[in-house]
């Protein structure tokens, strides 16, 4: 009944999350190793599958609410699952954006050796993984730590932007490529933001307290836990 | 509401209660008087011989009422054999069919029968059986008593079965059990307490009926087990002996009354026990 349906939808959400993780890895791998096939996979196979999952999960969430009128923790769970589902889908879109820009870049010479972007990608991937772990293990500490790391990723994006601006100023032929690299870093930053959203939702689900929109400092339990 | 008025009202309450108790007490008095007199006058006649010997002719000492006891028993058996199945069946029919022509007529018949004086029933039995058979008999007496038992049993059965919720019948039918088995094995057992009570009450009633027996069973100074011959019965014996001129017979009549009352009391007692033990709660 209710318990089974909740388990089922959580499972599906995890499937969706693993898919997103792989999409991220593949798009990075395609970029660094100049592998066109793997990038096309992300765009043509993985993203449609992610969209399918998103629809399934959304339908299940609505059905659960209609049929079982979940209360308290179960209600928070199903509502947050629905929100996380949306965030995952957006991450999927960002992964596609990354792949599309990568497809452009791998056919052309490098502007500069790729160091910061893979670093940023790795950081972002860890944030995504941890936010999903905090959901599965119901670990508010872990969720909180993800929220704190968002600044690191933001910093990396600014750094990359600054660097590339310099390149574009000195050599106009690098503008198009630099633009795509900036796009990629922005997509990664958005994925990190969405991971933060997921973590905030996890804390609400577990504790019933919201820490969204800077209510961070007000959440005593999130600090103490 | 001041204290005076309240006191007055409480007083009224108490007075009313006292009146109710007093009147209830008075209504028990006749019963106790009857029991007292019968016991006082009849107990002295009781003995083992009294219950097992036949009556002796006038003038001889001793004698008993054995033939009357056996005769009464015989009459009850003859009466019960048709009355109980017919009564129960009629009761079942009435409880199952609340409307309809036959129901209406049956109900009417039962009510009329219940109100018919016992002596009239006796006369009917006389016309049917005594005349056609050419003589008095236990059979005709039994039939008359059976007719009297019929409405009591029918009524009791109907009322008992009415109290059984339909859901019980439905539960049985839903298991694929045919209707007649449902009645026999589910409904009637559930109503056992009420039906048995009805039967015992009807028995207690006819045990003491005299009028119909006057011209059907007629009475017999000897022991008789032949149902087409006349037979003696306790009420008959009491009637005949009590109105006779012989004092010995009077004391026998007292003794027989004692026995009869005891039988009736025992029957009532047994009825209560059965009703209690076998009662089914819904």
């Amino acid at each position, binding site marked *: 009944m209710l318990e089974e349906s909740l388990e089922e939808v959580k499972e599906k959400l995890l499937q969706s999350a693993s898919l997103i993780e792989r999409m991220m890895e593949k798009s990075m791998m395609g970029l660094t190793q100049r592998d066109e096939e793997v990038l096309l996979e992300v765009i043509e196979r993985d993203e449609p599958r992610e969209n399918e999952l998103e629809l399934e999960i959304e339908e299940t969430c609505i*059905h659960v609410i209609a049929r079982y009128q979940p209360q308290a923790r179960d209600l928070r769970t199903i509502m947050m699952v629905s929100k996380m589902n949306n965030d995952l889908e957006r991450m999927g879109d960002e992964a596609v954006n990354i792949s599309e820009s990568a497809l452009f870049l791998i056919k052309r010479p490098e502007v500069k050796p790729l160091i910061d972007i893979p670093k940023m990608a790795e950081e972002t991937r860890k944030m995504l993984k941890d936010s999903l772990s905090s959901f599965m293990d119901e670990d508010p500490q872990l969720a909180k730590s993800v929220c704190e790391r968002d600044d690191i990723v933001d910093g990396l994006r600014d750094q990359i932007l600054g660097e590339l601006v310099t390149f574009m100023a000195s050599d106009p032929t690098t503008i198009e490529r630099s633009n795509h690299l900036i796009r990629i870093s922005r997509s990664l930053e958005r994925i990190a933001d969405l991971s933060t959203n997921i973590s905030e939702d996890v804390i609400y689900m577990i504790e019933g307290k919201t820490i969204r929109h800077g209510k961070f400092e007000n959440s005593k339990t999130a600090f103490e836990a | 509401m001041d204290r005076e008025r309240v006191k007055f009202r409480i007083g009224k309450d108490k007075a009313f209660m006292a009146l109710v108790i007093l009147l209830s007490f008075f209504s028990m008095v006749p019963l106790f008087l009857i029991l007292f007199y019968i016991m006082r006058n009849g107990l002295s006649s009781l003995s083992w011989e009294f219950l097992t010997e036949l009556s002796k002719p006038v003038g001889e000492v001793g004698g008993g009422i054995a033939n009357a006891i056996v005769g009464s028993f015989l009459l009850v058996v003859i009466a019960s054999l048709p009355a109980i199945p017919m009564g129960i069946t009629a009761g079942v029919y009435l409880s199952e069919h609340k409307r309809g022509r036959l129901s209406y007529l049956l109900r009417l018949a039962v009510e009329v029968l219940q109100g018919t004086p016992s002596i009239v029933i006796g006369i009917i039995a006389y016309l049917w059986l005594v005349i056609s058979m050419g003589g008095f008999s236990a059979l005709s007496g039994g039939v008359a008593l059976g007719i009297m038992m019929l409405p009591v049993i029918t009524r009791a059965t109907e009322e008992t079965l009415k109290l059984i919720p339909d859901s019980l019948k439905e*539960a049985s039918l*839903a*298991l*694929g059990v045919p209707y007649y*088995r449902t009645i026999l*094995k*589910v409904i009637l057992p559930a109503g056992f307490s009420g039906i048995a009570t009805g039967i015992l009450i009807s028995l207690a009633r006819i045990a003491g009926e005299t009028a119909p027996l006057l011209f059907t069973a007629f009475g017999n100074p000897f022991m008789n087990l032949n149902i087409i011959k006349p037979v003696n019965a306790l009420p008959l014996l009491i009637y005949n002996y009590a109105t006779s001129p012989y004092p010995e017979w009077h004391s026998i009549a007292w003794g027989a009354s004692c026995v009869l009352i005891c039988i009736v009391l025992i029957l009532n007692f047994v009825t209560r026990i059965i009703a209690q033990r076998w009662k089914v709660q819904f």
Partner: protein
Amino acid sequence: MESTVLRTAGLSAYFGDNRAVKDVTLSIPEKMVTTIMGPSGCGKTTLIRCFNRMHELIPDSKVEGKVFLREEDIYAMNPMIVRRRVGMVFQRPNPFPTMTIYDNVIAGYKLNGLELSRAESDRIVKESLGKAALWNEVKDHLRRKGTFLSGGQQQRLCIARALAMDPDVLLLDEPTSALDPKATAHIETLMTELKKTVTLILVTHNIAQAGRVSDFTAFLYLGELVEFGSTGQLHTAPRDKRTEEFLRGKFG
């Protein structure tokens, strides 16, 4: 893909001239819980009583159309056989008061005069009470009459009694409306287990219960089958306006 265990074709049922069930055609999927839902008086009880041929026991009643149990026309079969293959549990628990718990469970056999060996009846009693989640509570009291059981336990006894006949379909007519919330929850959990072995058709006017328990839902209104679909679908986005109004509590 579910297979159909019971289906109707143009089924109508009458009380005298009053048509309580109007031309209903539906298919009940096997080993699932199907709920017939609707406001009071919409004909749902009458409808399921056509499935076990109990409706025809009412004087002046009539049934038109067809009902098929595994493609056999039940109105061409012996009604007693139909009632053994399509069991029923009623709103008020109704165990036989003069029988022991043991005898109650096998009552369907005993009352029908069907012979059972001691070993067989022991087995049937244990299995049926087990399936009805009552075995542990009564296993030491099988020879007592069932009157000391609570309402919920009595209802489970009635379920065991119906299951003992190994029916294809079990009809449940508002089985929890006479029970307290705890007993209701027990029976609801029981239903989700039972559907693995027997098809269940539930009648209820309790929308929440219909949502919790059933896989498929049929909405009946004024004797007509308005809508039939998977429960999740029907509760979330019903196709017919009347279904929508009912679910939203506009009439009930």
